[in-house]
């Protein structure tokens, strides 16, 4: 259990600090940080396959949205509490991820990326038009969560707890034999095959895990927003975690969460200044890619003089 000590300190400590900090924040700021935390999990879920698996997916919203809609529909149709519903949404999205992965992983590189995009757009069209089930383009509104969960501070604390636990779990997985097998496949898939492992299965399992955590993030967001709408599945939602990862840095564990925080932060500030905030975001990303190819977190790490081999942890 030795390896957990520092991580438990970081995740537990961060959770407690933010929890105390939340006491002094108003509803607006609580909502902002809640959203940051959810998107940090969303970005990290993608980074499992992107940063550690070397698989570029353009369709991760297919899992965020799937988890979101699963949560929304379960909230609408059942009287279960949010926690069991989120567990169910995560399991369902993992299963959906395994199916999508089994299809997409038949193809390589760019074809893989295009397939993920195609499947996510397929899901978008289904969600958009299946009025009797998803309420189509109107989305599902007015979802009820418990009295307790409706309090911004409570949901803030709940989200932080879930996200901290999920990130911790992802960190464990990435530092397990499986995590290293995944890095190995990224580095050199042929060598892995000739070590006697089935590359396809390793990637599929990683894809399922990434989908599950992406679905959990989507579910958390629906529990937060009390509604689900087709934009959760839209391709532009798939671009967000990609941008966050580029912002934060692909090659380390904290890159994706840092990128998510930065992304929300930039959005908030820039939206006040200009309606063309995406333009500024685009410029920023260009500058980052050109001058800080390892992302903001990668830059910070280099400054701190930390050597990372094979990507953190």
């Amino acid at each position: 259990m030795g390896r957990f000590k520092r991580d438990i300190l970081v995740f537990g400590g961060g959770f407690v600090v933010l929890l105390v900090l939340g006491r002094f924040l108003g509803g607006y700021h609580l909502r902002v940080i809640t959203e940051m935390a959810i998107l940090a999990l969303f970005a990290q879920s993608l980074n499992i396959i992107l940063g550690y698996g070397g698989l570029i997916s353009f369709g991760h919203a297919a899992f965020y949205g799937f988890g979101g809609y699963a949560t929304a529909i379960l909230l609408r149709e059942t009287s279960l509490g949010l926690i069991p519903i989120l567990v169910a949404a995560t399991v369902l999205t993992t299963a959906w991820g395994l199916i999508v992965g089994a299809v997409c992983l038949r193809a390589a590189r760019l074809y893989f990326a295009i397939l993920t995009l195609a499947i996510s757009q397929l899901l978008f069209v289904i969600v958009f038009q299946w009025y009797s089930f998803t309420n189509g383009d109107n989305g599902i509104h007015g979802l009820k969560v418990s009295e307790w969960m409706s309090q911004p501070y409570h949901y803030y604390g709940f989200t932080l707890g879930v996200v901290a636990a999920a990130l911790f779990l992802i960190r464990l997985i990435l530092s397990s034999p499986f995590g290293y097998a995944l890095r190995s496949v990224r580095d050199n898939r042929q060598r892995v095959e000739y070590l006697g492992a089935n590359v396809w299965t390793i990637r599929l399992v990683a894809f399922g895990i990434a989908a599950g955590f992406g679905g959990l993030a989507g579910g958390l967001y629906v529990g937060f927003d009390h509604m689900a709408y087709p934009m959760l599945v839209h391709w532009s939602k798939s671009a967000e975690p990609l941008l966050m990862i580029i912002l934060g840095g692909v090659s380390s564990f904290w890159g994706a969460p840092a990128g998510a925080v930065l992304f929300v932060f930039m959005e908030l500030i820039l939206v006040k200044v200009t309606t063309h905030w995406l333009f500024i975001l685009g410029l920023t990303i260009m500058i980052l890619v050109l001058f800080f190819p390892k992302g903001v977190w990668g830059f910070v790490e280099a400054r701190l003089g930390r050597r990372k081999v094979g990507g953190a942890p």
Partner: protein
Amino acid sequence: MSGEVLLELKGVRLSFGQVRAVDGVDLAVAKGDLTAIIGPNGAGKTTLFNLITGRYRPDSGRITLDGQDISGRPSHQITRRGVARSFQITNIFPSLTVAENVQVALQITDRQTYRLLADFRPLGRERVAEILDLVGLTDKAGHPAGELSHGDQRTLEIALTLALRPRLLLLDEPTSGMSSWETSLVTDLIGRISTEMDLTVLFVEHDMSVAFSAAKKVVVMHQGRVFAQGEPEAIRCNEAVRAVYLGEEE
């Protein structure tokens, strides 16, 4: 021929379009043999390795390992049966450290890959140390593999194959691109692996002096066929071999 046959190829053929890359190869490798495969460029040496390790499926013919048919099986399954190989172009995990490279190979061999919550770091520590010691990379254990010299990277690849505890080791030009100093180290290593670990080794070699000094048996390939085989001395003196191969080189 010494002991039992470990690897046997019978009438193995493979064409790419009009090109008969491997054109009816019959070959038997006995347990414990240390065999070099030589031949001019395009003789089908690497293709033969690719057939044995399941990268290509033969058009016809049979490949058996210890009597079991392995022709056309997927690479990872053939590896599981104890066939390890290195490649002509170095094939390692550049972003992992030297020790982690070997650890990954061990963990896959020991079927630990799907332990999602176990700790990777202490895995197989002693075995890793043993293997690194054998190949002489102990003092570079913590280096990122991508930053090693070419010769060390090639040696690391041999270390990876040893982690598989193979029965049959296939090395594709293990000394290519190496300095003469590195070449002599690797030649020596191949000899030690074969005797100390009691491994059957088959290696493709471009460098004739390496092939003749390291191997106990030499197989000459030419135009997709086995042209001659025998003890290094016999091959060296074989007039026909000189004509097709040695003559060309010099």
